[in-house]
């Protein structure tokens, strides 16, 4: 039965009735995002205020969430309210500021450029804002996007993303290489890598900081920018503001968030986030051949440029399809190095294919929108889409052919089953 508390004389049952027994939570109003973390059914809108509740939560404590395709397809430029989110550390405690769609309010944001240089330099956000900027429309995609589809061969551990771990947005920022040149760092000839890191640090003392390293001569750095705006506004906190390195055409983890340090070094960063995580084997492997912890600098490469990919936006399995004329549409993209010039669509499970009309974007890094007008008689149909670019790179009919232990870089031909009636 109810005991009683010593001090203030309120019995436990009395407290229970007032606080919890009546079903009214005596919660902290301002801490509503935190309530969601412990409450049971994590709601994206409670985790990061402003995100729509329809987001599919993959890890509440980290604010990891995916966009349903039914929402994603409604916008050519993905609004921040529906953009997928993936952070590596808890969005609470010291990092609760990251659980926000608002800009990061740190006016003295400073980036330190250091390493094998003669002169260490600092650049502030205010400095960046005064410099000449470039805008780039680009796909942002998690390396794990599509991981759920690898389970057809063997399940890969981690969040089972479908297609919604991607977005198409516009970043504005200062081009990286010209900035580094202008700083006159006096870099050593021993410099082989640029390591980029920032405020993305773990809560535990033995944890690893989030940093990524790039070969200093990587051509992708030619188009990298230190971005401070997304879709015309300061980059939201959860998406990496105040400053995010954006490398158009590269998987999401390589767009380092919260940038405060650029390091010119002779070797890549030793942190697990560079040395082991976000790496793919040099060639596809069979399940069991390699453990998720077996990755190293010799047997793998980071998740660099996007593998060419296309996704069907309509019709989806959730759509009501009337038998007769139908427009199948979707998007396609690649690493931006060669134009996507063919998207083939099948409505009979791959027996025959027709070329879709492609709308080529101004930016080679953005979504190409494709569509095909065709007929769907009554019945069940498997729709497929397959993109090919000018270099002949295309998608495997069976995406599990590219199976890797962490389930990265899925780019199998998309399949949607619909019933027309």
């Amino acid at each position: 039965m109810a005991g009683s508390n010593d001090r203030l004389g309120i019995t436990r049952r009395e407290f229970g009735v007032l606080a919890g027994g009546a079903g009214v939570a005596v919660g902290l109003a301002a801490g509503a995002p935190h309530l969601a973390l412990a409450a049971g059914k994590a709601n994206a809108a409670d985790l990061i205020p402003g995100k729509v509740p329809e987001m599919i939560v993959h890890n509440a404590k980290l604010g990891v969430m995916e966009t349903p395709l039914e929402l994603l397809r409604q916008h050519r430029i993905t609004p921040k309210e529906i953009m997928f989110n993936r952070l590596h550390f808890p969005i609470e405690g010291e990092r609760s500021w990251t659980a926000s769609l608002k800009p990061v309010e740190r006016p003295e944001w400073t980036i330190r450029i250091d390493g094998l240089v003669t002169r260490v330099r600092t650049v502030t956000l205010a400095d960046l804002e005064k410099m000449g900027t470039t805008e780039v429309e680009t796909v942002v995609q998690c390396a794990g996007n599509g991981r759920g589809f690898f389970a057809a061969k063997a399940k890969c551990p981690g969040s089972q993303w479908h297609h919604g771990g991607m977005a198409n947005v516009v970043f504005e920022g200062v081009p990286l290489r010209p900035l580094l040149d202008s700083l006159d760092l006096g870099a050593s000839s021993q410099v082989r890598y640029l390591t980029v890191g920032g405020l993305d640090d773990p809560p535990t003392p033995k944890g690893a900081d989030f940093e990524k390293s790039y070969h200093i001569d990587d051509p992708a750095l030619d188009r990298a920018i230190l971005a401070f705006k997304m879709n015309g506004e300061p980059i939201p906190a959860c998406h990496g503001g105040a400053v995010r390195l954006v490398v158009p055409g590269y998987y999401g983890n390589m767009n380092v968030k919260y940038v405060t340090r650029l390091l010119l070094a002779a070797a890549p960063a030793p942190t697990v986030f560079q040395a082991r995580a976000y790496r793919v084997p040099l060639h596809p492997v069979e399940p069991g051949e390699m453990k998720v912890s077996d990755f190293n600098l010799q047997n793998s490469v980071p998740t660099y440029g996007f593998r060419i990919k296309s996704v069907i936006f309509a019709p989806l399995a959730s759509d009501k399809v009337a038998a007769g004329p139908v427009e199948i549409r979707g998007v396609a993209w690649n690493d931006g190095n060669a134009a996507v010039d063919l998207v083939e669509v099948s409505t009979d499970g791959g027996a025959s294919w027709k070329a879709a009309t492609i709308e080529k974007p101004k930016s080679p890094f953005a979504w190409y929108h494709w569509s095909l007008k065709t007929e769907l008689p009554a019945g069940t149909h498997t729709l497929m889409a397959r993109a090919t670019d000018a270099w002949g790179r295309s998608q495997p009919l069976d995406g599990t052919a590219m199976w890797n232990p962490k389930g990265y870089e899925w780019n199998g031909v998309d399949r949607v089953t619909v019933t027309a009636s």
Partner: protein
Amino acid sequence: MKVHFLLLACVVSLLLGRAEVEAADPFELPRGPGRQLVYGKCRTCHDLQYLVDSAGVDAATWDGLLDDMEGYGCEFDATERERLLAYLSTFLGPTPPPASAAGAVTPSKADGASLFREQCASCHQENGRGVPGDFPPLDGNPDLFADRLLPVYVLLFGLEGEITVNGNRFDGVMPAFSHLSDAEIAALVNHIRSNWSNRVRFEPAFTIRASEVADLREPALGPGDVQAYRRLRLAR
């Protein structure tokens, strides 16, 4: 007595009401030996959805994942690693035993010190000093002596929202540890209250009995309720 009811009523009316139904961790893992070690070690840096979403992978994959987690800062000794791997590869493996076949789980020895290492140290640290900004200290934490039952509520139902400990602000989420038995929770609270510099403040009157823990499990509260209780009891 009337004053205190009023005080509590004011607290309730001031704060936003929202129905909380779950007190335990939102992810209920299958029962089996080693389950509690998973709760203790695997919620510091992420929640259990990663584990639930990975269910079905084989022992070799879980083995690799444990190595991976060490790289991210998860700490466990060889014995703990064996126990974790056994649990994960069995109950979250390709052929988990049906629930009814799980069998009785022999409760651990309810030794406060080893429970602390297993369940609490990953956040609050072995030395009980926590991590500034992230995990409050337990060594020298006045909360432990301001109210006899508060630590029991915290372990049973978690704690969320902003708190101040010795002038330092924390704004995190402590998950519920209701997976622990009454004896284990009592042993933990008694250990924390009498360890490090806390032993100076400890008095026999603060000793918690297992039966008292049992008494507090129903009705289930939420971490927000515990926060409200804390505020009330500490008059902060």
